[in-house]
């Protein structure tokens, strides 16, 4: 890919010289806020549903509360059902997501930086293979992956989820672009002349400059692992190791399984509602970082 003709500015730098914000367009405002309904109605429905019992769920209007307000009862059920395994699932999800995100960001940062700032044999091939890997449909290769993991005694363990999540080809791509843009070659040269070793340059100078990019990779891998369904589904058997996605899907299946089933629709919906909150909060609080990190990754290619 070619670089954009207009050089990207360093992320986060204020750029508006003239305050254009005062000229609002009512029409545009109305259009944007009306389309917002589309994005919010499903979530509103989810919240309203989390306040209903099974019976109300199937008999009352979807966007308004039912005959009784069962939200707290549902939350109670959610966290006590099957000895409170849901709390365990939440904890697992946090563990998997955080460890994977940190690991993936660390690996991607080191690799992306090296690809951007050094010239070495096989560099093009390495980058090409990493990028090409994005195109391989992994779900279809699930069973071979499972068999290899089983051979290495990794199935049904925490590692079966965390180790594969350390690989973020997109993260490497993003960090390479980001490093090329935000770590100046002259800065590195100056450090070398001062006698700093390569790793010291990376550890002290580069890392600080790369911070917004690192946060971006961290957050996106956090989301990817948090939302991951397929990998844990095939790798894990022990319910106490499940992340929330697999656990909820299991409850949903139990709700419509064969003999001896239990009816869990409202519990599943309440669980779904609870499970999306942490990520939304994380994105809201960390938006300054990930938006600036993305800016560079998107413009330069």
């Amino acid at each position, binding site marked *: 890919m070619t670089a954009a003709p207009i050089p990207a500015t360093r992320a986060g730098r204020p750029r508006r010289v003239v305050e254009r914000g005062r000229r609002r367009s009512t029409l545009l405002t109305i259009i944007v806020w009306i389309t917002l309904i589309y994005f919010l109605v499903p979530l509103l429905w989810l919240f309203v549903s989390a306040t209903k019992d*099974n*019976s109300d*769920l*199937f*008999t009352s209007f979807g966007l308004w509360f039912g005959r009784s307000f069962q939200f707290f009862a549902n939350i109670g059920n959610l966290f006590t059902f099957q000895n409170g395994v849901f709390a365990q699932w939440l904890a697992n999800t946090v563990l998997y997501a955080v460890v994977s995100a940190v690991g993936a960001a660390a690996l991607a940062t080191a690799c992306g930086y090296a690809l951007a700032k050094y010239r070495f044999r096989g560099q093009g091939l390495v980058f090409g293979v990493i990028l090409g890997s994005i195109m391989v449909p992994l779900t279809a290769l699930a*069973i071979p992956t*499972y*068999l*290899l993991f*089983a*051979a*290495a*005694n990794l*199935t*049904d363990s925490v590692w079966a989820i965390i180790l594969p999540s350390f690989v973020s080809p997109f993260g490497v791509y993003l960090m390479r672009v980001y490093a090329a843009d935000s770590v100046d070659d002259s800065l590195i040269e100056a450090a070398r002349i001062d006698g700093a070793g390569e790793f010291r340059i990376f550890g002290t100078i580069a890392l600080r400059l790369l911070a917004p990019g690192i946060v971006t990779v961290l957050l996106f891998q956090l989301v990817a692992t948090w939302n991951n369904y397929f990998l844990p*589904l*095939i790798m894990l*058997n*022990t*319910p106490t190791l499940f992340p929330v996605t697999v656990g909820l*899907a*299991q409850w949903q*299946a*139990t709700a*419509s*399984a*064969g*003999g*001896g*089933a*239990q*009816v869990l*629709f409202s519990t599943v919906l309440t669980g779904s509602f609870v499970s999306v909150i942490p990520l939304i909060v994380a994105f809201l609080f960390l938006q300054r970082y990930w938006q600036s990190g993305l800016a560079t990754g998107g413009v330069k290619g």
Partner: protein
Amino acid sequence: MKFRKTALALASGATVLALLSGCAGTSATTDSTKPVTQAEIDKAMNTPTTLTFWTWVPDIQNEVNLFEKKYPKIKVKVVNTTGGAQHYPKLRAALKAGKGVPDVAQMEYDYIPSFTQTKSLLNLEPYGAGKLKSEYVDWVWNQVANSSGVWGIPQDSGPLGTLYRDDIFTQAGLHGSPATWDDFAKAAAEVKSKTGAYITDLPGNDMFQMISFFWQAGAKPFSYDGKKTVGVDLDSATDQKVVAYWQDLIDKNLVATDPDFTDAYYQGLAQNKYASWLVAAWGPVFLQGTVKSTSGKWRAGNIPQWTAGANVSGNWGGSSDAVMAATKNPIAAYELAKFINNDESSTLMLANKQFLFPTTKATLSDPAFVDQKSEFYGGQQVNKFFAGVSNTVDKKFEWLPYMDYVNSSYTSTLGKAIANHGDLKAALAAWQQQVVNYGKQQGFTVK
């Protein structure tokens, strides 16, 4: 061999090597036919052992606790596997990897042949299972046993009946559930014109309901000799009669064709869209949980008959606990499977707490089970009713060793025709053809 080496080099890792060597030693050779002695059993049950048990029965830990109390040396690790959709793929993956295979696994009757075909199940006959035959309902026992052995201990079953809305039926001028299929068709027209409801729903996604109708009509669509020969007779005269019957009701718009067990389906039940459900003995508990608002309005009746005056039912669902051939503790594993599904207190608990419809004659006549009155069914003794139905199920019914394929093929042939109101007869023939072709392609001799 040479090729294998190249592939290994390509894979660039020692894991592949470990895998290939790991795979070599998986096929189990535990097929001794010598009966196990009491001394061996006592020794095994007094040796500290941990068993892994895969099942999707909720709260089965309670029954397992009874087992562990009786055999304190044996610890059981219960793994709840979600149910069929994940249970079998996971089991097969574990078998293929040769690692993580449980000792005991829940197994639906129709899945047993696909696991005996791969020699993955332990023959329980030498462990004493043969002696249990007389304690189970005949047709149920035939589901787990064949001439070459006993492959599981029956856990629950699903004799077919009719659950109907007494209020809607009364409004339509009907008294009780229709006795014959002809009556049922007439009733369908009455219900539709007087109440606006469909008499029932015929889902296009539920092969096992359709097969239970075939079963009830006396068809024998599948056979398997346990080795390489299968028989496929889906396009038989009997099955054609059954689909022609439903074609008529679909064409007249007297039955709904929504997928079952979805939230929309329960909403349909709650909102009077369907006036009855042709369902197995495990159906009553489903309704109690999902459509509480209709409590007291439901009744249970017989499945309609093809011949007036006859009393024949079919089966829909049900499962056993099987012991995997790979187990290192066959005796303890067998004792667990047996205890859960044979011990009086355990089977009664399964029946009354988890609502699994029983398979033992003892529980089916136990007053603590059959004498219960259900408010939801207007005080009717639903258990007693279905216990009676269980004795009318046609005794011999076999499955193919590849029901997974038969099922997905159904969804794209007959099931699709039902959902889209198409030509059921042609779809039945297409289903037959696909199932035959697949059998041949997989190396079976198809009769």
